């Protein structure tokens, strides 16, 4: 029996079949929606002829051009602020003896895993012009008629989104600084250069590629973010590209116009990510040869605690205050009543988890879909990544490229392509769980792929070859030798796809139907009628689940989360 299987394996190499299936799956998941996106954008909705009519409509009317200008202002400002704050924060944590370095790092990660739409929700409670707690406190203390903050404004949205984008620059720059030895600075110090001058002329220029990479990453995150602008900018009567795309989906759905409108964003994203990759590459090049040099921490002396206070303000705004607001609201019977006796209750938790079948199902869907999506993404990443890395197939780079392609597609645009491709026969996924599972798997395939291949690179193929030469088939050699050795790499690739899939909104909002609702779409639905207690409760549940997973990763895998998510190799 075993001999037969072996003979069969040798004849038609089972591995080749698995690989072919994976390639077919990835082609359907990545190439088909992109093709449909392009095709739809050229399609005249009334007579199905092809042309540029949609582009003409999308890019000549001022009502559609204003959102583009707003998006550019939003994304540029968010990226500039995030880079301007993330850089000194990274320097303080990586190069100085500032107290609480571990705490600051931990809180930056907390900001990173917080979905910006939850941050926006929390800041609505804190800084709505009249009812926000900060404004009310200000009015109570100063006796003035109105508080100073208005979160429902472009400035408000920039503020909130910047808070959740700081982790990108922070991580890239601390990565660069950690590799930068102190030799150059020491030499400058010996020659009489002061600390400020050393920082400006040596440290900053060396970190510049990392800063720019952080800027680009934040720009792309901000321009493709849907949730936070929907919460903060619709009441502010300011449209951005993503909220305008959402409007195109309203009845009567103008999918063709949406596809055309999305195209420039796709090109900008691809172009900027290409630039970012080149910059990161250069950064690594800069450091070659200086690795292993001595690094010491710059003593801050009397400034230690004042600077700690400044640094701590960042997570205070992005994490501590918003979490407190969400938690307090979720524990209130009615948030408007404030912290009075009888208002403290677990009612909403019981409601969300036990009494309300809709939220119950949404919580379950979120976990099941994220689980399935992460598993599919990792399975594809393993199959294709292995074949590519081990040089088993010709044209390997093309397959790697397709697996990485979704990385440059903003979620909202992927959703438009998915809707166009899979809401009609023969591949009718719309209305089924698979619509969301496949979309999430596609969206997070690059994360799974890059993390798996990175860990695979550390493993030589010799052991497999030894097994092969002793007569084991390819699949057997992989399953019995490679996988056990790569267990941690595979697990972390899976978790890194699972975490964002658990709280994905910008794809889900276009692809779910009420029977396949997930937590994030339910939160979005509840937000329209001011059901703040219910949606704060669901938000806290997402955060608790996310932190449990992040802690597990740290405990068992010791991975740097942001590096891995933000910087596919």
């Amino acid at each position: 029996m075993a001999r037969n299987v072996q003979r069969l394996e040798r004849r038609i190499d089972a591995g080749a079949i698995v690989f072919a299936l994976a390639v077919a799956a990835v082609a359907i998941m990545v190439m088909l929606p992109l093709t449909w996106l392009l095709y739809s954008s050229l399609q005249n909705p009334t007579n199905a002829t092809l042309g540029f009519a949609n582009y003409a409509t999308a890019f000549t009317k001022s009502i559609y051009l204003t959102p583009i200008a707003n998006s550019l202002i939003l994304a540029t400002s968010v990226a500039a602020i995030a880079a301007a704050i993330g850089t000194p924060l990274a320097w303080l944590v990586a190069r100085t003896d500032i107290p609480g370095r571990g705490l600051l790092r931990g809180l930056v990660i907390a900001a990173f895993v917080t979905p910006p739409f939850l941050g926006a929700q929390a800041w609505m409670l804190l800084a709505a012009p009249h009812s926000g707690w900060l404004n009310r406190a200000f009015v109570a203390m100063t006796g003035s008629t109105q508080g100073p903050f208005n979160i429902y404004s472009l400035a408000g949205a920039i503020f909130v989104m910047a808070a959740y984008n700081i982790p990108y620059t922070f991580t890239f720059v601390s990565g660069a600084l950690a590799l930068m030895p102190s030799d150059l600075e020491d030499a400058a110090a010996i020659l009489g250069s002061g600390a400020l001058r050393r920082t400006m002329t040596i440290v900053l220029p060396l970190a510049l590629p990392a800063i720019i990479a952080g800027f680009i990453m934040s720009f792309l995150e901000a321009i493709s973010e849907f949730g936070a602008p929907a919460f903060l900018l619709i009441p502010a009567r300011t449209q951005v590209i993503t909220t305008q795309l959402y409007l195109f989906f309203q009845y009567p759905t103008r999918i063709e116009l949406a596809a055309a409108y999305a195209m420039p964003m796709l090109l900008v994203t691809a172009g900027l990510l290409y630039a970012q990759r080149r910059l990161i590459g250069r950064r690594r090049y800069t450091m070659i040869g200086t690795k292993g040099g001595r690094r010491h921490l710059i003593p801050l002396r009397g400034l230690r605690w004042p600077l700690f206070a400044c640094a701590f303000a960042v997570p205070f705004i992005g994490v501590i205050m918003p979490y407190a607001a969400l938690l307090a609201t979720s524990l209130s019977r009615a948030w408007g009543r404030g912290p009075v006796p009888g208002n403290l209750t677990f009612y909403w938790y019981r409601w969300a988890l036990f009494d309300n079948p809709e939220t119950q199902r949404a919580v379950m869907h979120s976990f099941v879909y994220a689980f399935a999506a992460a598993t599919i993404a990792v399975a594809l990443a393993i199959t294709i990544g292995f074949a590519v890395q081990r040089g088993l197939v010709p044209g390997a780079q093309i397959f790697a490229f397709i697996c990485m392609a979704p990385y440059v597609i903003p979620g909202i645009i992927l959703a438009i392509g998915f809707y166009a491709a899979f809401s009609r026969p023969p591949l009718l996924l719309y209305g089924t769980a698979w619509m969301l599972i496949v979309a999430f798997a596609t969206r997070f395939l690059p994360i799974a792929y890059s993390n798996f291949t990175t860990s695979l690179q550390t493993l030589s193929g010799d052991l497999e070859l030894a097994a092969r030469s002793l007569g084991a088939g390819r699949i057997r050699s992989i399953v019995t030798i490679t996988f056990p050795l790569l267990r941690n790499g595979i697990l972390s690739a899976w978790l890194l796809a699972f975490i964002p899939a658990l709280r994905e909104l910008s794809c889900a909002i276009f692809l779910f139907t009420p029977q396949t609702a997930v937590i994030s779409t339910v939160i979005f639905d509840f937000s329209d009628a001011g059901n703040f207690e219910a949606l704060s409760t669901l938000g806290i549940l997402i955060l608790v689940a996310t932190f449990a997973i992040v802690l597990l990763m740290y405990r068992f895998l010791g991975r740097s989360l942001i590096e891995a998510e933000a910087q596919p190799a």
Partner: protein
Amino acid sequence: MSRPTRSSFLALAAGAAAGLSARAPAEAAKPNEMSDADVSKLYAAAKKEGTVVWWTAHYAQSAADRVRDAFKAKYPGIEVQFIRQTAQVIFQRLNQDLKSNVHELDVFASTDESHYVVLKKQNVLSAFVPADINKVPLSLRHLDPDEMYQIGALGFVLINFNTKVQPPHRWPQLGDPKWKDQLTLGHPAFSGYVGNWVVAMNDKYGWEYFKSIAANNPKIGRSVNDTVTDIVGGERMVGAGPDNYSLERKAGGNPIDIVYPDDGAVLITAPVAVLKAAPHPNAGRLFMNFMYSREYSQVLVKSYNYPLRTDVPSANGVKLDKIHWTRNKVERLETGIPEVVAKWRETFNV
């Protein structure tokens, strides 16, 4: 055109009756009204299906929760899966489903009557005459001459306000500069209530009315219920809001109240229908049939919605014929809502 203000319901009733008889030929294909035996049979068949899926824009989540609980108490063994969303959102989701030939919905409950005209044209609704339809006010029976949809809930768009301020009593007063930065509105591209209100105001006062409101920099949410949240939280003082959810929050001790404007509240006759391709057709009909039961009207009153049945008194004791109201004709909504949504985007930039 919104219909002229009436002080009595009877006049409208007569008009509706006349309209009905004029379209008599369509009645040939009409199904018969449910008998008690029919309802028992329906329940037995519905139990086999086990579930009913209901998308509603009729009232707030809390009211819909109560309706679900009351239905399950009366008809054990049938699970109610529902979402509450604004009218235009559930309509859009239904249309996306229909386009892709996905059938997940049984009972569609929007607040924009013109949705049903569109759905009728697509031939996706199924005719149904519930058992106790004759218990609703005469003028609201047989909303559709072909019985493809029926009245499912009643409500008003009126002026809601924070009790800290003296409220306006007429719609044009919302344009008073005194309310600068103090107004809150829903969005006609989301909410059926708001769409109805905007059409009525446009037809009564012209689009200039909304320019005067825009000058007051209103906060614009999505659902009409957003106005209630803003007022309760003190974010804004005055809104064009719903009667039901405002009264519910008022009863909860919040600083909010309502005014029926002197120049007419806007009456919303929110329809309900069962889809032809419903995955649970019997459960869907049973659920729709439940909407004319005494239990349903009582549950509506508990959450401060207007009762459908004439034999169940309203929560605040106000009778329909004592309220000054206007109502849009369905033909007007059909063209009016897309029209005002486009104008709204220009004027309010959202």
